[in-house]
């Protein structure tokens, strides 16, 4: 009876993937993969991606759909990051400056993005995808033209335009993941990054408990009801888009400090789908998402993504990890998207 309840609550897709992940961990030692290293990798990736996935929640809650326009927030984050490097501030202050610069940019972009989505009610996700596309394309030009000067960021010879990948080492690499990190043998736990993720989750959870947050949830459930209850539906939707975009900006900064590089140009482009897939795998539907969906989904997605290539590589004795990673990642994205119509219970 208890098991049945648990299955009902968790949902089959999650149980299947969790079992798969478990079996990967179980086989790992037999094919010569170090479990502690793999677990460390999984934890690191979980922390890196958590906030990006969290950026889905506000928009989903107001019924704006899955945020395929995540690249917009990511671009804001990258602008903040590059500006902070340009200013030459390092360490904690540098990271704080990046967040501080990125957030207002994200808010402004999100505001316009929100207005746009309000005009296309019913096909938000399509337009969001398009916004993602075009903002990336626009920024491909902008990254070249913006008058950055810092030698760490611009192309070596020509002397103008930003590089495709910019190292943040020396600025704020591992500023969160290295903070209070616990190391036991090969197992590393990025405590600081987890605490940061937890704080972000708490903020979102807390916000959803406020009057405005409650109104946002109602707008997602039934906009007509919300309107008849005196809620300004369009405004609530804009608030949610702004929040999602800011979270996207913060998310990419967390990601970059752990990864060690900023990926400009088409980089942001590849970030939306894994985040969308994660939250769907976590059990969210198109207009309901919880913090649990974020955490569970991110862990499962990143877990499978780290473990499968490692295990298969060692079995086949080749190095195809990148190929396998792409196949697994896209496979899971596909699976998640086919699941999305299934509303829980």
């Amino acid at each position, binding site marked *: 009876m208890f098991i049945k309840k648990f299955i009902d609550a968790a949902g089959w897709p999650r149980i299947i993937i969790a079992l798969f992940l478990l079996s990967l961990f179980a086989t790992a030692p037999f094919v010569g993969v170090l479990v502690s290293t793999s677990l460390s990798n999984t934890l690191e990736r979980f922390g890196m991606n958590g906030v990006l996935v969290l950026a889905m929640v506000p928009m989903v809650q107001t019924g704006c759909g899955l945020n395929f326009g995540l690249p917009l927030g990511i671009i804001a984050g990258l602008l903040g990051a590059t500006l902070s490097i340009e200013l030459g501030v390092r360490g904690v202050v540098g990271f704080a400056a990046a967040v501080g610069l990125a957030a207002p940019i994200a808010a402004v972009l999100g505001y316009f993005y929100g207005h746009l989505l309000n005009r296309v009610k019913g096909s938000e996700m399509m337009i969001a995808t398009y916004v993602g596309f075009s903002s990336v394309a626009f920024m491909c030009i902008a990254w070249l033209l913006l008058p950055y000067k810092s030698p760490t960021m611009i192309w070596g010879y020509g002397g103008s335009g930003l590089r495709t990948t910019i190292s943040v080492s020396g600025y704020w690499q591992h500023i969160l993941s290295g903070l209070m990190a616990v190391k036991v043998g090969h197992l590393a736990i990025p405590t600081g990054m987890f605490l940061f993720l937890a704080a972000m989750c708490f903020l979102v959870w807390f916000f959803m408990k*406020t009057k405005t947050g409650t109104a946002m949830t*109602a707008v997602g459930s*039934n906009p007509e*009801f919300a309107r*008849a209850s*005196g809620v300004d539906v369009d405004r609530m939707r804009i608030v949610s888009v702004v929040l999602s975009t800011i979270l996207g900006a913060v998310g990419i900064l967390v990601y970059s400090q752990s990864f060690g590089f900023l990926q400009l140009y088409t980089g942001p482009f590849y970030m939306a789908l894994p985040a969308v897939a994660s939250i769907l795998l976590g059990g969210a539907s198109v207009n309901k998402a919880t913090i649990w969906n974020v955490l569970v989904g991110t862990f499962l997605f990143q877990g499978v993504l780290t473990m499968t290539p490692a295990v298969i590589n060692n079995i086949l004795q080749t190095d195809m990890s990148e190929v396998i990673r792409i196949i697994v990642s896209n496979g899971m994205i596909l699976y998640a998207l086919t699941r999305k119509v299934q509303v829980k219970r």
Partner: protein
Amino acid sequence: MPETPLLKLENIGKDYFGTRVLSGVSFSLNKGEILGLVGENGAGKSTLMNILFGMPVIAGTGGYEGSIIIDGQKTEFKSPFDALEAGVGMVHQEFSLIPGFTAAENILLNREELNRSPLEQIFSERVSTLNRPVMNARASKAIKTLGVDIGVDTIASEMPVGYKQFVEIAREIDRTATRLLVLDEPTAVLTETESRILLDALRKLAEGGIAIVFISHRLHEIIELCDKLVVLRDGKVVREAPAKTSSLREIAAWMVGRQVDSRSGARRPEPRSPELEDLALSVENLWVDMPGETVRDVSFTVRKGEIFGIGGLAGQGKLGIPNGVMGLFPAGGKVTLFGKPVKLGAPRGALDSGMAFVSEDRRGVGLLLSERIDWNITFTAMQVQNRFLKPLLGGFLLLRDDAAIAREAQSYIESLEIKCTGPGQRAVELSGGNQQKICLAKAFVLRPGLLLICEPTRGIDVGAKELVLNTLRHHNEEYGTTIVVTSSELEELRSVCDRVAIVGEGRIAGILPASSPAEEFAILMMGKTGQKQGSGSDVH
């Protein structure tokens, strides 16, 4: 020799997440027979019909027990399509028309007439175009069978609710294969005249050999229409009886398991002398652009502490008035509440000025279906009046007070006898009548100065009807709430209101004291509109 029954249910049982909803339900139905299914709100009527029709919600919640036997063959419908295939048609308690489609398109959905073309040979039927003239003819024939006059080109979202109901039924009639028709509260939103037309049409269908299961809370319809009736109580069949020889009182008693006073409400004791009271609401030259319920030019005043009724046939604009005053549809004119002008077109303004509203569109406007009951009940009060909130940081942040919300909901669950597992249950999991009570509670929580309420007892069972009307009276007397009730049930209006306005063609045909004889109301309803829809004997 008894023929094999068309439909036989054997020991049907069902539970939802551990709550037993149906157990051991058995009965049978012959060709051409009409069976009335009655029971209190939440007795399991809709659930039983959902099982019969193969609705996905049943399979999605663990399936059912027992067997459905059609023509002597055990059947199990995996989906509504299987049911349709087998000749079972269903009209649901909540509407299921496609809003942007015309009546004809809705009626013939998936059974469209196609223009034959050579392309079809190469590809499939998908490339064929629709043969509109034939479709329209077929649709209009189905509508005619029902004895009503609805344009086949009318867009579903622009129809008055009554018409929607007829279109849904026409859709089932057009399916030539239909042998068993299930109707879940088809008359709940119809006026007497309209339901009479419907009942006549159903009788004709039954004569043609179609078996019908008819669910209604208007018990006199059951007696009038059905051959036999089955009473459900808490998910069990407690009685099977011939309908014609049962009395209203008997049926009501079987339903609730004790004697009930089924007199439909005592007349409001002493109509106050309205001249003495101040004006509460004044409406001047109001027009409202509500699809299907257009209001052209309406003026009236309601005094403080009055209960004012608005009646009329479907589509004449009676529903447009409260919806317009509330700001839900584009509107113009002058509305004044307690001496202050009300800005039209903005629900927030109306709410802030002290109004509350119960919509006739329960699922569309009235409920957050996928949220908890307590959220549904308290949400408006939270947003408009800042109640059920805990201030934080000196009022900078307003945090939801979940405990207070649950407590408030619990008190309404008790006082309105809402059948549920607790304040945390989702609204979608409630039976129709109980959802209606949630909508009422939502308005009561606001403690409004003016309560606009549409179809207050829609889908509410005989026992609870009095409870609901008494709650209305109670709010009126205890808190001095002025109430404007819009209803398709004239009798209800006459029993609870002081004065009743009858609306015809978007205008007020007349305003009468509730104590006026029924005939005068009937004349107002029929006379001015010039539509000879019924015999004019609207009240019994």
